[in-house]
């Protein structure tokens, strides 16, 4: 037997999903995250999930992992102290950026720019110059560089970025600087712009490479440590990290190019949500992934999540492809407070994280969080109910914490808790509007699919604000990210920038490059032990009219290219240009990027069909309980999700419990259980 394991490490919980590659059977586990060293939590989870499945960890061959380490490093500003080496005359490349002021006419009046990721005080200039065609205009002054690097070292930099002008045309000087840096600053990780993003445009290349440096030490430590730990119990395992664009990266590539992982966690969630929802017959989705520290939303149209050529985290935008996910800094761990001056109730963006965590988790947290408010209102039952099998909820501690807010506002405990929930829901609603209404989509045409630790608790309320029905609560919503990780196909690509007008190259030259790229892309899959017969390779070229800024990506088959040459891609480009922009031009075309993409075959997962039952869910009812909803205490029912059958209709107010999440169904709403175990909430 061989198994593949999907692992998602969130701010609060670590989720695992194990797939038997032969039978398609799945097993899940959920354990607390351990932020000081996430691999501890992951290993705990592996032990647990293997125990659930009754297998030896050695049987796991593929370990697929989405991680938020890179994202959180940027969001919390906890990245490395990055030194930057630029070309002489370009020290302020990040300070000036693209000179762009957002906000339209007059936007400058309210625009305050944040300081660059690599501080100016830690930026030095290398005396060197490469020309636009790659020629050396001025040789690198090594002596001066050594002196300046030493000074940087004394200022305590933790990572170094090298980004020189025109390095996309000739990386030689960047390599020389890297060599000197290795001598002068041993042990400092170095990121080189011509390796991270070998493309024209100095600002974009620099900020992307600096972001890589910024998150690198944390990611590197994390991946190496994880690899080491995991290898102890799993001898044959291949470690893969999910990239922001939904592809998979080897552990080594992840360590060197962590800038591609900024959206790794969310990408896993979106892939998982799309996979599950499609089974249930829903293709237009708003994904709603609410975790402990943040919430990610993404719009999926016709089963496809939008990809962007850029990744934005906080106010940092880099050149790296990603699933178009918007993140707001609000989650179960978000802290509620009442500022002295305004006496307004605010929730987040500060989070209690996993440590100390919400007060109710009894790990030393005392500040009121969204989770604590949910406990106070009865939505998260306390007492015997367990999360991840071993996490008790202390209602008394939650009440004590929320009382701080209640006292400051002069409200009752439950009113204050309800206020916290209302505000956080409104924030979520705003995030969902960002990806729907503000892009011209009507949220009423979409279903809201909720996951993440806290998603199902808030989904009904957010769905109500948006009018997005049904609200879909997939089974095991906490492990959906891990689901996405585990079902992602192994994929690798090889690319090369090759800027030539058609008249400056030949079909023969181009075909030769494509073949080489194809075998490069295939190598990574070979090393994963994927048979050639199970690999598929596709070819793409980015092309434009000479003089244009745009690039359109044209797909083609190698065979047709060999038969008809550059005409194949030229004609297809004209067609696309006309279709997209209503016109084609009689101008010469220019090749820019060439790419080969190799993919393994899709993973087989057995659909987990639920046993059929009647509309009556009473067999799954566990107890009656009091819920504070719509401004008053109301009697609701507590259900065990494990006992719900297909066809059951759960009337709100109700709480549906399962091992790794809790769903709230509001009064005047019903949750229908479908064949796949999803709960579909709609107004009654």
């Amino acid at each position, binding site marked *: 037997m061989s198994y593949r394991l999907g692992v998602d490490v969130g701010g609060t919980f670590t989720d695992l999903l194990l797939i038997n590659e032969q039978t398609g059977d799945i097993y899940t586990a959920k354990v607390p995250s351990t932020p000081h060293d996430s691999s501890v939590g992951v290993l705990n989870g592996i032990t647990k999930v293997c125990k659930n499945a009754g297998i030896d960890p050695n049987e796991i061959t593929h370990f697929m992992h989405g991680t938020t380490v890179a994202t959180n490093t940027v969001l919390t500003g906890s990245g490395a102290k990055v030194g930057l080496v630029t070309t*002489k*005359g*370009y*020290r*302020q*490349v990040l*300070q*000036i950026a*693209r*000179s*762009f*002021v957002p*906000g*339209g*006419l*007059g*936007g*400058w*009046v*309210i*625009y*305050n*720019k944040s300081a660059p990721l690599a*501080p*100016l*005080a830690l930026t030095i200039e290398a005396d060197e*110059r490469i*020309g*636009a*065609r790659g020629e050396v*205009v001025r040789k690198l002054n090594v002596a001066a560089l050594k002196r300046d690097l030493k000074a940087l070292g004394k200022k305590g930099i933790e990572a170094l970025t090298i980004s020189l*002008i*025109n390095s*996309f045309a000739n990386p030689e000087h960047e390599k020389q600087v890297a060599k000197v840096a290795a001598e002068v600053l041993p042990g400092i990780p170095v990121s080189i712009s011509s390796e991270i993003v070998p493309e*024209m*445009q*100095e*600002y*974009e290349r620099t900020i992307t490479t600096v972001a890589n440096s910024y998150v690198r030490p944390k990611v590197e430590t994390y991946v190496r440590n994880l690899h080491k730990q995991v290898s102890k119990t799993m001898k044959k395992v291949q470690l893969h990290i999910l990239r922001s664009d939904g592809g998979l990266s080897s552990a080594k590539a992840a360590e060197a190019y962590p800038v591609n992982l900024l959206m790794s966690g969310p990408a896993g969630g979106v892939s998982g949500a799309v996979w599950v929802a499609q089974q249930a017959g829903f293709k237009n989705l708003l994904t709603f992934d609410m975790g402990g520290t943040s919430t990610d939303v993404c719009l999926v149209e016709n089963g496809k999540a939008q990809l962007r050529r850029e990744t934005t985290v906080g106010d940092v935008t880099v050149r790296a492809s990603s699933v178009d996910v918007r993140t707001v800094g609000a989650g179960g761990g978000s802290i509620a407070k009442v500022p002295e001056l305004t006496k307004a109730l605010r929730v987040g963006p500060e989070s209690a994280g996993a440590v100390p965590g919400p007060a109710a988790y009894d790990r030393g947290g005392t500040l009121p969080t969204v989770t604590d408010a949910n406990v106070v209102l009865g939505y998260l039952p306390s007492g015997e109910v367990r999360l991840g099998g071993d996490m008790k909820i202390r209602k008394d501690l939650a009440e004590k914490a929320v009382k701080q807010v209640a006292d400051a506002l002069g409200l009752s405990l439950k009113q204050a808790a309800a206020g916290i929930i209302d505000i956080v829901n409104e924030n979520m609603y705003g995030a969902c509007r960002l990806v729907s*209404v*503000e*892009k*011209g989509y*009507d949220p009423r045409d979409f279903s809201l699919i909720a996951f993440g630790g806290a998603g199902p608790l808030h989904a009904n309320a957010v769905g109500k604000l948006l*009018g997005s029905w049904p609200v879909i609560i997939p089974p095991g919503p906490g492990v959906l990210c891990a689901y996405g990780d585990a079902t992602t196909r192994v994929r690798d690509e090889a690319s090369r920038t090759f800027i030539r007008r058609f008249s400056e190259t030949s079909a023969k030259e181009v075909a030769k490059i494509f073949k080489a790229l194809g075998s490069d892309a295939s190598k990574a899959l070979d090393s994963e032990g994927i048979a050639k017969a199970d690999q598929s390779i596709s070819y793409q070229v980015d092309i434009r*009219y000479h*003089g*244009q*800024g*745009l690039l359109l990506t044209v797909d083609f088959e190698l065979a047709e290219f060999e038969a008809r040459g550059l005409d194949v891609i030229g004609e297809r480009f004209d067609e696309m*240009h006309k279709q997209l*922009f*209503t*016109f084609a*031009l009689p*101008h010469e075309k220019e090749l820019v990027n060439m790419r080969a993409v190799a993919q393994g075959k899709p993973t087989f997962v057995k659909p987990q069909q639920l046993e059929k039952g009647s509309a009556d869910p009473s067999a799954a009812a566990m107890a009656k309980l009091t819920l504070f909803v719509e401004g008053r205490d109301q009697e609701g029912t507590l259900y065990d999700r494990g006992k719900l059958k297909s066809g059951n209709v759960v009337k709100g107010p109700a709480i549906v419990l399962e091992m790794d999440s809790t769903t709230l169904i509001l009064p005047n709403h019903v949750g229908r259980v479908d064949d796949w175990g999803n709960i579909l909430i709609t107004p009654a």
Partner: protein
Amino acid sequence: MPAKLVETKPRPFKRVSIDPITLDIIESGMLNARYEMDAVLFRTAMSPGIREQHDEFPMIANVDGKMVVGQFGSFIYGFKAAYNGTIEEGDIFLTTDPYSCNGAVSHSNDWLLLRPIFKDGRLIAYAAMFGHMTDIGGKVPGSMPTDAQSIFEEGIRVPPTKIYKKDVLQEDILELVLHNCRMPQWNRSDFHAIVAAIRTAEKRVIELSNRFGDDVLFSALDELLERNKRAMSKLIKSTVPAKKQYFEDYICDDGMGMGPYKIRCAMWREGEKVIFDFEGTDPQSTGSVNFYLNEEMFKMFCGVYMIMVFDPQIMFNDGFYDLMEVRIPEGTLLKPRAPAALSCRTHALGRIFDILGGLLGQGNPDFLCAAGFSDSPHFMYSGYRKNGEWYQLYSIGFGGVPGKPSGDGPDGHSLWPSFTNVPNEFLESYFPLRIETYETLPDTGGAGLHRGGNALRVAYRMLEPGQISIHDDRWLTYPWGVNGGLPGARSRKILVRKNGKKEMLPSKCDRIPVEAGDLLYFDTWGGGGWGDPLKRPVEKVAFDVEAGLVTREGAKRYGVVIKPNGTVDDKATKALRAKMAKKRGKTKLFDFGGTIAELKKSCRKETGLEAPATPVFQNWFGAADQGKRKGKKAA
């Protein structure tokens, strides 16, 4: 004769009530369509001015021609008033002549395309967009001659013309126009890109109309304009005093040795209406620095500025136009009579924003912003490469955003919406030059509690012989500081010849011959400072010094003493601040850096350039105008 609308199935729209969610969705849908116009244009245009620097302005208007989404306000009134023909389904209009469209575009480089959007035989909206073409022929590359004395020297002019009829391109006309341009390939591509952008807008508007119904869309656009009018009405009442306020500022020279030229504006409120009167502005220039200011466009500038300063939550559109009246005397710098030259209007256009800031802010000092980078300086470089190929660059410069109530002004940024710099690697790949320095200059931002942004230095090394042209300003007058803040540094241009000889170039000049190896330092100007520099937190000053944005010497303007090792000398700082505060006394509301007479006197010494002569105004336009202005000398 105004334009005549021809509809095959005319019928009135019905005003219906709209629920707030639908209204929000339509507003977002329109905004999205407007951003999509930009996206389509940037992706398909070829000239760096449009595709990289975004020198273009999109708009979608309702059936009456009122802008619902966009930047510069509707130019459709002006167009309709001036055009004699019909407006029919399948038309796309092209115009580039400011005098034929009441200043909808203000120089002929801006090509304006306008598309009436029809659905089922009746007009439902307009989409329009204009973009700056790198070259439209005329006497100099770039088509903006600093010494032009009439518009006939500034390249080809196209009066309002149907460039598409029944959706068929009038190729003869397009080819005729392109034949007069130095870079026809760029213009052709940019032209098609603008057409593609307005067709995208059309598609989106029709989609919205199909989805919600024609009457709902019509009513929603109306309601969006109304909503804006209500908000603006409140804003005007609370921020514009009934008492007359005056403000004046200058453009430094006309490129022909005369200057500065005064722009003066009075503002007051009558009931819910605000009035702007430019009486007292200098007569039109005999050169090309005139700015044909469209009144509706000025309203938009003003409205947007007020919204940004006082309440950025308000969405802006044309809804508030009835609440403003703009009076611009004919024959002045801002309403020149044809055929006055207009190509170098960018300086007066920019200065309008400083004037607005001064006018609106003097009664509300907490909201007052300093003078900023109110210009878009041009650098042009053209000639023949060794292989005989023609090259021609038009590029916009950046500078210091002013200190403002919300904080420091960014260094080397833009005041114009959506403008971005061209990546230097792109320039070096496509033009025979190398950019050796690209940095902001320390101490050029005006000192203040909130520092003005630093000026930008771009050092261009020419790699082929050719000619350069420069259009800049604020080399004589200062970007002023406010509420105790000091002015920012002025601009300058230094040409270092291959043999090491240094020449100070005038702020506006054309056809300066350059050789391979010559180096041009294109230094723009800094933003004015906001608030008392002696109150700026010491650690912020120290941070700027460590970053190299302020020098140790420059820190003294803040009364901060930095030791040679970079740390703050607390004792000396305290003493210096006390001494400076005593010497200075009360802070000034505005700091202009001196009177015009003082600035002229020290000009040669400080700038290396002769002071401009007092402008002589040609009396083409009748003594009556001049006399009237003299007689009504404002208080």
